[in-house]
């Protein structure tokens, strides 16, 4: 259907933009890390390869921020414009949430592919279920907050501040408890495919994301649009 | 054609009269095509239905006739027809208000006649 093709082109552009920022930003962080690292014991080449292996992790970090920021602003920027241009509310919301989900999937896909391909990256693959779960959880948060801000304005912003704040706190506390960054990652590498809880987390993440989609569609059903 | 529309009369009547004026001035000759309602609407920035109303009045009076698929044309004898009709209405259109105003100003009928005769 022609309308589908045009929509795909439009959201495709936005998806590429999000992915681009995540990949590019991740690369920038990696470069900073590499420059900051002083472990040249095995030679420059060895060090670069080691550092490069964690590139997806930086993509992940930047990517979650990208999903959060873009996801929310997509609602703010596009929702009312879509509806004012004769889109149904459902179409408008579905477009945004699917694009967000596609970013989450895209990031997960990139990370898995990268680690599958790069030499020595295989040991990181066991992290994928956990990572996927987190990505979709972030996507769901972004969608819920995007809707909350557009629908309930000030209350939504308040909600956003509280939620983001508590998430940030939780993340920080977890990090502190599990020691430094590299230690946490190595601990996660211990979990191989036989451990169930990362897979459950992945499943929960996707489920949460799907629930947030339903929530978004329902919440915007009778929203007022003022352009 | 190309007169400016006023608010004094209904638009469709003005369109009708404009076409009549053009026929009287030999701007539109008999058996010639008259601008279509769409062309009139575009020229004057008016609704085509309004233009059509004016044109249709002329068709009803026999001043214009329709050639299907081609457009509206000036009927034979249209000029004479228009002149005759306007002569009929001359009293109502012009003289009546002239006399009312004259009466208001206390100008007598003789004075009116003198004015006409001497000019």
């Amino acid at each position, binding site marked *: 259907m*022609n*309308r589908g093709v*045009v*929509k795909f082109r*439009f959201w495709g552009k936005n998806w590429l933009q999000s992915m681009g920022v995540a990949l590019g930003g991740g690369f920038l962080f990696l470069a900073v890390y590499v420059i900051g690292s002083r472990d040249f014991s095995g030679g420059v080449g060895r060090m670069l390869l080691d550092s490069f292996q964690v590139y997806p992790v930086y993509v992940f970090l930047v990517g979650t921020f990208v999903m959060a920021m873009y996801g929310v*602003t997509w609602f*703010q*920027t*596009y*929702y*009312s*414009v*879509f*509806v*004012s*241009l*004769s*889109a*149904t*509310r*459902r*179409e408008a919301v579905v477009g945004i949430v699917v694009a967000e989900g596609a970013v989450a999937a895209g990031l997960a896909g990139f990370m898995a592919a990268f680690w599958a391909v790069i030499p020595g990256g295989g040991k990181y693959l066991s992290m994928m279920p956990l990572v996927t779960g987190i990505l979709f959880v972030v996507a769901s948060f972004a969608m819920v907050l995007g809707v909350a801000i557009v629908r309930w304005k000030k209350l939504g912003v308040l909600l956003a501040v509280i939620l983001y704040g508590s998430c940030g706190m939780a993340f920080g506390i977890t990090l502190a408890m599990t020691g430094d960054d590299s230690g946490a990652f190595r601990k996660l590498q211990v979990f191989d495919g036989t451990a169930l809880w990362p897979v459950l987390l992945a499943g929960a993440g996707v489920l949460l994301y799907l629930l947030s989609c339903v929530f978004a569609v329902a919440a915007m*059903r*009778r929203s*007022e*649009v*003022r*352009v | 054609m190309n007169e400016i*529309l006023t*608010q*004094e*009369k*209904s*638009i*469709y009547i003005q369109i009708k009269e404009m076409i009549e004026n053009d026929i009287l001035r030999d701007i539109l000759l008999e058996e010639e095509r008259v601008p279509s309602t*769409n062309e009139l*609407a*575009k020229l*004057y*920035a*008016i*609704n*085509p*239905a*309004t233009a059509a*109303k004016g044109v249709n009045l002329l068709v009803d009076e026999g001043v214009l006739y329709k050639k299907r698929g081609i457009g509206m044309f000036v009927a034979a004898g249209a000029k004479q027809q228009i002149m005759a009709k306007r002569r009929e209405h001359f009293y109502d259109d012009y003289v009546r208000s002239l006399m*009312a105003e004259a009466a*208001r100003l206390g100008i007598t009928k003789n004075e009116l006649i003198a004015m006409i005769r001497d000019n």
Partner: protein
Amino acid sequence: MSKLTGTGITKTYGTNDVLQDVSLELESGRIYGLIGRNGAGKTTLLSILSAQNPATRGTVTLDGETVWENPQALSHLCFSRELNPTSGNGMTAMKVKEYLEIASVFYPHWDREMAKRLVEEFHLDVKKRMAKLSKGMLSMVTIVVALASCADFTFLDEPVAGLDIVAREKFYRLLVEEFNETGRTFVVSTHIIEEASDIFEEVIIVDQGRIYLKENTQELLERCVHVSGREEDVDAVTAGLEKHQEERLGRSKGVTVMLKPGQRLAAGYDVTVQRLSLQKLFAALCGEEERHE
């Protein structure tokens, strides 16, 4: 022939009834004028008719199908609003190009060629951000969207705000041209009544949340007259008729009269009888003196 029907539309914001039990029918192949004072409910009505906002009560149907959240029906509707991107609603950073791109996504009959042609004709810089556009240029964007949408029922809200007279005249001509070619229905809401009145086949007057009247423009203007002269004469001539906006100055009086079918002014009195412009008529009908609070 298509019909867009609104039945019993009521819209309440808080305790304020912006629209009260509004019912009307719009037909295809017409140009309607929608006029009313600020706050009368015009924009709200148009947004409800185009399913962009929900009515508190009442329904809107297109050929019998409800329009609300109905993509099929919505593909025939376009409501090109007065744009105001500085109010922090997210459109601020968007470029004109992107806005038109989005329009092309959701209007299935979007005419890219026409959009391109109109952008050139209006000298619009599509790379400019919406928030940086002047009022006039925003109106031009509104007009481009409305015309290129090729929707069967297209609503324009204050399309000429900020446009100079030359641009306004261009707009009226473009509208008539497009109407000539396609017979699309246009509903134009405007405060600049006089210029636009010639293109309206029917005029809809909205006053305080209700439809005051909906009538063929020419017929409406033909049945309204302004009578003036000596007070006693005017009263005698207009006895028993519907009167609006009586004005007195010394011994003279002026009044707007709306004749119902079959009525006429009494003859034999020396009074001045004049036609009214749509603008003057509207002011007489919906002016301050007419408020019965």
